[in-house]
């Protein structure tokens, strides 16, 4: 196992058997499994401290508010931020939509937004909606191995580029992008710099830097429950922004035709918040802190380089993204060549491409062996188009995976 602080037994779901066999869960990029510590924190909250937060003055409500706000501080400390810079949202998608509907709204016709071709849809669609208003969306390309083309980024960074929003780690290629450098470049240009950290904060040490204006990530991808996400924002920027949703909780005073909004972060948390989610996320943060994020990264890097090496020995398997595990996270997108003798008329098209198994067929084949991988376009269709692929299968690792999972995965794949 990864360390004394993380055992597979901590995760009740792994007790489950499918056809009498344990599962090999390799889809943590989609969502992670939850340790007992997180599940207990949620149950304990409801059994012992449930009340609405920031409202009533009795003891139980104070306790609930304290738990909620302590969760915020815990998350803040985890990434090196201050608590009043942490807005709880539903997920990364909502965090990025919040930005689109606030700072995005302040853009004018002719302004530009720069993203990359390796973004998840959640960092594309919130910006694409602004194109209707005459705002341009530019995409930075990447090289054959999936490294972001920094020269392309610099050339596309224009005076009109008001927002630069980049994924820290690709959820398909696994590429870890040099966000410190990109952030500096963006700030030199006077652009607002946003990081989609959904695949990085859960998997590696993440420390806030001066050049980061906003950082978005999800709780469920880091052992926490679904339905809780985070938006970090520099306090003075959050202060200047208009609210996103409006209603209960986010106001200081409401008159018949006017309202005074709360200070950040509450200004962005309209309605009863997901207290259970925040408490669960804080428990997940505690769990990860015990292991240590350096150790999480080291563990995933080891499993990744082990897997890449084994995949290179399988002649019919092609994987995407950097060859060097130093440059990538524990997510491996791959395809398998179908060398069977097909009499399908594809050949008549004279295409000199390898015929690949459809990723769903690979995933079903592995499913029959209790190995769970994702298949399809991974919510990154522009990336798939850049690779000229309809889809890939994808295996991804987290703290609870071990060498035995790599062995099971590669040997099952070898049977295809």
């Amino acid at each position, binding site marked *: 196992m990864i360390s004394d602080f993380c055992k597979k037994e901590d995760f009740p779901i792994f007790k489950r058997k499918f056809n009498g066999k344990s599962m090999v869960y390799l889809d943590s990029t989609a969502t992670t499994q939850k340790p007992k510590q997180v599940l207990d924190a949620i149950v304990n909250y409801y059994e012992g401290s449930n009340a609405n937060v920031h409202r009533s003055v009795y003891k139980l409500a104070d306790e609930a508010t304290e738990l909620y706000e302590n969760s915020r501080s815990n998350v803040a400390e985890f990434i090196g931020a201050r608590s009043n810079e942490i807005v709880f949202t539903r997920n990364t998608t909502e965090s990025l939509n919040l930005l689109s509907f606030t700072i995005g709204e302040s853009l004018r016709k002719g302004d530009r937004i720069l993203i990359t071709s390796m973004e998840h849809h959640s960092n594309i669609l919130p910006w694409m909606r602004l194109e209707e208003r005459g705002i341009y969306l530019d995409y930075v390309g990447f090289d054959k191995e999936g490294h972001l083309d920094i020269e392309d980024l610099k050339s596309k960074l224009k005076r009109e580029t008001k927002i630069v929003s980049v994924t820290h780690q690709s959820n398909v290629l696994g590429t870890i992008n040099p966000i410190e450098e990109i952030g500096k470049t963006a700030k030199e240009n006077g652009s607002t710099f946003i990081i989609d950290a959904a695949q990085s904060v859960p998997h590696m040490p993440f420390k806030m830097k001066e050049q980061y204006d906003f950082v978005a990530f999800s709780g469920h991808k880091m052992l926490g429950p679904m339905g809780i996400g985070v938006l970090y924002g520099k306090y003075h920027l959050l202060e200047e922004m208009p609210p996103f949703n409006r209603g209960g909780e986010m106001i200081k005073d409401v008159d018949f035709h006017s309202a005074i909004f709360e200070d950040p972060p509450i200004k962005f948390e309209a309605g009863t918040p997901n207290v259970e989610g925040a408490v669960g996320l804080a428990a997940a943060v505690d769990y990860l802190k015990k292991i240590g994020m350096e150790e999480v990264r080291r563990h995933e890097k080891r499993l990744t380089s082990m897997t890449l090496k084994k995949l290179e020995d399988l002649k019919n398997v092609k994987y995407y993204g950097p060859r060097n595990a130093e440059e990538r996270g524990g997510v491996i997108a791959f395809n398998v060549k179908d060398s*069977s*003798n*097909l*009499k*399908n*008329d*594809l050949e008549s098209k004279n295409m000199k491409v390898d015929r690949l*198994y*459809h*990723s*769903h*067929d690979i995933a*079903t*084949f592995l*499913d029959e062996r209790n190995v769970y991988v994702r298949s*399809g*376009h991974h919510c990154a*269709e522009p990336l*798939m188009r850049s690779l000229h*692929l*309809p*889809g890939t299968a994808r295996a991804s690792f987290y703290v609870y995976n071990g060498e035995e999972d790599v062995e099971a995965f590669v040997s099952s794949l070898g049977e*295809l």
Partner: protein
Amino acid sequence: MYNDEVMDRYQNPAKNGKMEDFEIKIDEASSTCGDRVVLYIKTDGNGRISDMKWQGEGCILSVVSTDMFCENAIGKEINSLKGQDDLAFVENFPIKISPGRINCVMLPLRAFRRGTKEK
């Protein structure tokens, strides 16, 4: 993978290929899985299918389901094909289909319904 019946048909589809003298051509693409299938239909003029072929690419399940659909359609009425029950259609497939793969098997029936709406 799957079973012999499915794999045999995948490797030797009966109705794969272009049709020149078609009456109806249906272009179906599923962006969620990258499948892309074209159905060619010829009728006897009385709403009955006299021949059907397909071209394109997809996963094994969608390709096999499409090939079976084309073969089984011959001699049948367009309306009765369109009206068949989804559940029965999936159950008639040679292997048991998991919920996540139902869309793959349903591809030809959905395309057929959409493309013959006005007929």
